[in-house]
């Protein structure tokens, strides 16, 4: 089986563009990236099949038929991608309704985790005085809970 160079290049382009878009912060671009990647994956599956005549008895000799199984799989994958795309679109719309933008705001989440960690450190330090050896306590603005322990 010799794979078509044209399709291979198309797969490469789709993957490259898809990954680039997936790394964006805007949800609609992420969505486009997912769609491109999904189509790239479908092409990979298509490439796995031997090209040939239609897999219908009577329309072609059995030896010349293309392998119909990858096409069935691609159909399934397309349906799944369609559903996911619809859901992501709804999610992006919801996000836009709630915040006025559809950027993925992982910064706030990260910041919150760091803050939580700092606060936990502070409360630990207050719990066990003996272990109090590290952690810069210069920015312990959320340290009110340390006093109870």
């Amino acid at each position, binding site marked *: 089986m010799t794979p078509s160079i044209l399709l291979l290049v198309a797969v490469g382009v789709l993957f490259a563009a898809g990954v680039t878009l*997936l790394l964006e912060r805007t*949800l609609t671009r*992420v969505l486009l990236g*997912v769609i491109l*990647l*999904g189509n*790239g*994956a*479908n092409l*990979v*599956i298509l*490439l*796995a099949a031997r090209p040939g005549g239609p897999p219908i008895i009577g329309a072609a000799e059995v030896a010349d038929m293309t*392998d119909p*199984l*990858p096409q069935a*799989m691609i159909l*399934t*994958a397309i349906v*799944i991608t369609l*559903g*996911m795309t619809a*859901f*992501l679109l709804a*999610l992006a719309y*919801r*996000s836009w309704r*709630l*915040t006025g933008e559809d950027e*993925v*705001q*992982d910064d*706030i*989440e990260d910041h919150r*985790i760091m803050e*939580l*960690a700092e*606060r*936990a*450190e502070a*409360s*630990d330090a207050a*719990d066990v005085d003996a272990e109090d050896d590290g952690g810069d306590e210069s920015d312990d603005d959320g340290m009110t*809970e*340390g006093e*109870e*322990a």
Partner: protein
Amino acid sequence: MTWLVPLPVVMPLLGAAVTLLMFRRPRVQRAVSIAVMTSTLAVAAALLALSSAGPLVVAVGGWPVPLGIVLVADRLAALMLVVSSGVTLCVLLYSIGQRAADGDEAAPLAVYYPAYLILTAGVTNAFLAGDLFNLYVGFEILLAASYVLITLGGTETRVRAGTTYVVVSLLSSVIFLIGIGLVYAATGSLNMAQLVARLDAVPDGVRLLLQSMLLLAFGIKAAVFPLSAWLPDSYPTAPAPVTAVFAGLLTKVGVYAIIRVETLLFPGGRMADVLMVAALATLVVGILGAIAQSGIKRMLSFILVSHIGYLLFGIGLSSRAGIAAAVFYTVHHIVILTTLFLVAGLIERQGSTAMERLGGLARTAPVLGLLFFLPAFNLAGIPPFSGFIGKLGLMSAGVNEGSPLAYVVIAGALLTSLLTLYAVGRVWNLAFWRAPACAFPEGQSRPSSRLMLAATTALVVAGVALTLVAGPLYDFSDATAAELLARAPYVHAVLSGGAQ
């Protein structure tokens, strides 16, 4: 008795359809959901009993075996089915109780029960799948349902957390799909039993590529360390029952897929060292993240990630003892983590899950104290609980292996065990043991209904019972590992399965 095999997939799907049609009648929805989950559990138990005689195989639609879809219930699949359906039933009861307690009768979220049942169908389908593409479909079914559940209600925090989860899951699905395409291109088959023979003919380099593609996809789903950052970010914001069932099942479906692929398709442990290093990193990084947290749910999410490392360690050893311990530990992990997330949900109803705000729960809510204490110290691996037995099994399997890397991972595993004890001990000290920290404003704490407590108690009892049945269960895990490593029973049962 092979007609039983498709039922764990078919029943929840039909149940989902019925509950979706009955969206105006929450009472019917509840009754149907409970009936479906109870019968799924019963069927799973029957399959478990039958699977000892050899894998049960069903060719769906009567297509001859290598062509059509096969469902296979061998020991591993049946064991996972029993544990997962038991856990989902308890969480379902808990969520029904929560709904009753919160008076959501007036405005029921009609989509909850259908999504929950579809999630169950996806999980069971993934466990029973006999070919890679059906495994992919199982993953997609459960993921699609989980997207709905994790963004339930569509509040701002849930949408944000859900976005991370959805995008990462989509990426792992695409990687899995590409892996499937490549496997098909290399071998011309996706039936796992047929792949066993065909992969032997594939050149080594190509086989390594296929293996790493699949492991990468499953690694994201199982939250293995470098690929685990999404989990603690997205799980804690979802409703308590949703987080509980996600924590119990979704990552373990990934682990199940890793076990299946590593033992059946790519035996010989070529990626064993990679898995061991990933196990070590997952264990240590996860638990270090956990002790830094001050929210109980978030801490549990990190512990969840960390303890996936134990499972990987067992798989990485790729010996019979290692796989057996990993299977046993998976059962323990599913039950205990689900229980703890449910208990965290109960604690949340006292006002908060932030440890610095909680206090004196041992006095104000002694039952809650007991419900937390037992699974938490089970998790930390205190003898005689099942966590101890599982860890002991893993360690002794590691010592049997005897390689320097195995000893390093054992050291990391011991450290993780100690730090887990520290982490849950801290929760115990801060939330339960010390004097009340501050009074919560009126209306912030909500009473828990009796059903919620009953469901949680049932899981706690199940967790303790794992110790009582540890002997038979460990024997079963051992037989499972033997069956997995032998490969021939599975292959023979599947390839001759369509003939009957």
